[in-house]
């Protein structure tokens, strides 16, 4: 247990093994990456990859003439395509990043899988529903890797919470309250009409991915959704039951003006204490002193404590860089990433069940 005591340097090594592996292996050079979808997430992943390994992004595909024409005049080091098949044929990328709108993930991921591309990264949610995910799994060959962009799993605060939970610092879990909130949708939009699903799929999927990682969710007790600015769910609330009997209350909204950027929060009440964790912080309060809390009953750590001179690239939140490092390391080591498409099945199944159970209010 010594290595896990509250020595920050040791703690970070435990929480973020990607850092040591990155230094040890010097991964990624020689890989040819293509990005499909050059919106904000495509730009972000391409940017992080190029900052980690200059010039690794070789091609971009986007169906928009405006974007591909404009970007090709500015970005000289990348080949731009509007046709995915043409890019796959001509560039033969080792890695394809799919960062298009959710509704197109399924047909787009299927193409490089069928083409034989070995490594594919798809932004969250991987598909619109569980059935599409199962279909992709049936197309995927055993030597192909598909990683899903559930980047909260790469945030050190959540990894720390999982470590404390698994070590029993707060005892037996009794109740969980969790939310994901943002102020992204505060005016009417028809953008999500075709998709037919809203905030639970778009943001709530992060929360469910974390909760299914933390706990074994066994049943849904109740679920309700509400529309405010769209024809889909702008607000979603549900009560779940975990193995062992703990109640899990979840809320997801993208229409809360108080939240400038999205925040994911989980409060875990156990028989010996409470863990409160978000992307930005971890706060623990217990009845007993614990070695993992520095032999104290309280612990509060914030982002600046976790990310001291790490990760090696700062573009958006640090978990995005760690996520990309994790993927490149997985490719180098030929192992499945933490958030492989196989590991995402439980989350997507729960999403389907919640939509099915939800009462519209």
């Amino acid at each position, binding site marked *: 247990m010594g290595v896990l005591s509250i020595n920050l340097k040791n703690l970070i090594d435990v929480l973020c093994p990607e850092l040591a592996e990155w230094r040890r292996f010097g991964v990624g050079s020689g890989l040819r990456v293509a990005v499909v979808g050059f919106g*904000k997430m495509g730009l972000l992943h391409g940017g992080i990859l*190029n900052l980690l390994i200059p010039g690794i992004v070789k091609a971009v595909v986007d169906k928009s003439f405006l974007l591909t024409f404009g970007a090709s005049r500015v*970005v000289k080091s*990348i080949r731009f395509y509007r046709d995915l098949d043409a890019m796959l044929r001509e560039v033969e990328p080792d890695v394809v990043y799919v960062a298009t709108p959710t509704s197109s993930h399924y047909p787009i991921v299927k193409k490089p899988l069928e083409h034989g591309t070995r490594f594919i990264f798809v932004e969250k949610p991987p598909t619109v529903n569980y059935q599409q995910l199962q279909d992709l799994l049936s197309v995927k060959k055993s030597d192909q890797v598909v990683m899903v962009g559930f980047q909260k799993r790469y945030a050190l605060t959540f990894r720390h919470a999982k470590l404390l939970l698994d070590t029993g610092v707060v005892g037996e879990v009794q109740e969980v309250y969790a939310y994901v909130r943002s102020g*992204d*949708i505060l005016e009417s939009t028809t953008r999500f009409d075709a998709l037919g699903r809203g905030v639970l799929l778009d943001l709530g999927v992060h929360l469910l991915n974390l909760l299914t990682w933390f706990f074994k969710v066994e049943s849904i007790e109740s679920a309700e959704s509400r529309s405010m600015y769209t024809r889909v769910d702008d607000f979603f609330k549900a009560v779940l039951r975990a193995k062992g009997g703990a109640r899990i209350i979840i809320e997801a909204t993208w229409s809360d003006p108080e939240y*400038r950027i999205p925040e994911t929060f989980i409060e875990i009440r156990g028989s010996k204490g409470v863990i409160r964790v978000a992307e930005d912080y971890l706060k623990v309060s217990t009845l007993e002193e614990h070695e993992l809390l520095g032999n104290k009953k309280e612990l509060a750590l*914030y982002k600046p*404590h976790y990310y001291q001179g790490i990760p090696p690239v700062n573009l958006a939140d640090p978990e995005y860089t760690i996520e990309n490092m994790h993927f490149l390391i997985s490719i180098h080591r030929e192992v499945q990433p933490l958030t492989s498409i196989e590991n995402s099945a439980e989350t997507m199944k729960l999403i389907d069940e919640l939509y099915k159970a939800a009462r519209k209010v």
Partner: protein
Amino acid sequence: MVKEILLGDNPFIGVSHLAQEKARNERREVSAIEAKVEVLKVALEGGATGFTFSTHQANLELLTYIAKHYPETLKKLNYYILVPYAQGYVRKANISGTVGLAKTVLKEIVAKHPLDFVTSAITLNIDKLAGMFIAMELDPYLKTIPRQNIKAILLHEVLTELIIAYNLADLLHELKKFIEKKLRTGFGLETRNIGQLKKFLEENSIEIDYIMTPLNPLGYQMAPSKEEAEKAVQELGEQGIKIIAINILASGAVTVEKACEYLKQFKDSIYAVAYGTTKPHRAKENAVVLRECLLRG
């Protein structure tokens, strides 16, 4: 040598790199415009000399208010403007999609700069559009703030990091030319990847006036590592680039005294330090401590 102590706008617009929870509380504390004015005024009393802010609507409202009610205060400050306010565009993209956002921005550029837009379109000079976009963002601020007090226009970190990542040297040249020649002010870049930025500038032989970058004892937001970022700050400072150190308190995780102890080693390399707060007493105290520690002695 450290020449300026700047007040930063983050707490005014609900930004905290410590925790969003803190940001929401701070925004409530200064929800009244007079509360922000008070913070600025007492920071000035403590020895702050400037205000660094992004082109967020709330800052325009604040500066317009100060221009109307406290014109003397407006004249006393130097200004370092960060452009654009990136999160605003992220939010717009969430509503209309990236292509929808691009079309909206292009329409606005056409409306404001029709002739320049036509020239840019005929010559297929897309880089030039970036200058027009920046001008459009800055326009209301340039009409409000005394021009001689605007010391620098700096590109927001998201833009800087993407310029490095996608090796957009031509775009950077165009923006630098536009800001220096058309706006006649200093040009700078904000970055959280100073090690990578230094390499990019050297490889592309680009000279800039200012770099704004986090510098704190924890190494928070310093890349590719704390040590490499420190080395880059020192070397860039020695080359004559004016370094503006931001996030010196590691978003509130360290005290101003600890920050001062740490920053002393960079006294010869940095030009200014910035700090942010919503509390008037802290606005003054921090300015006093930083001044004592870095401008004197």
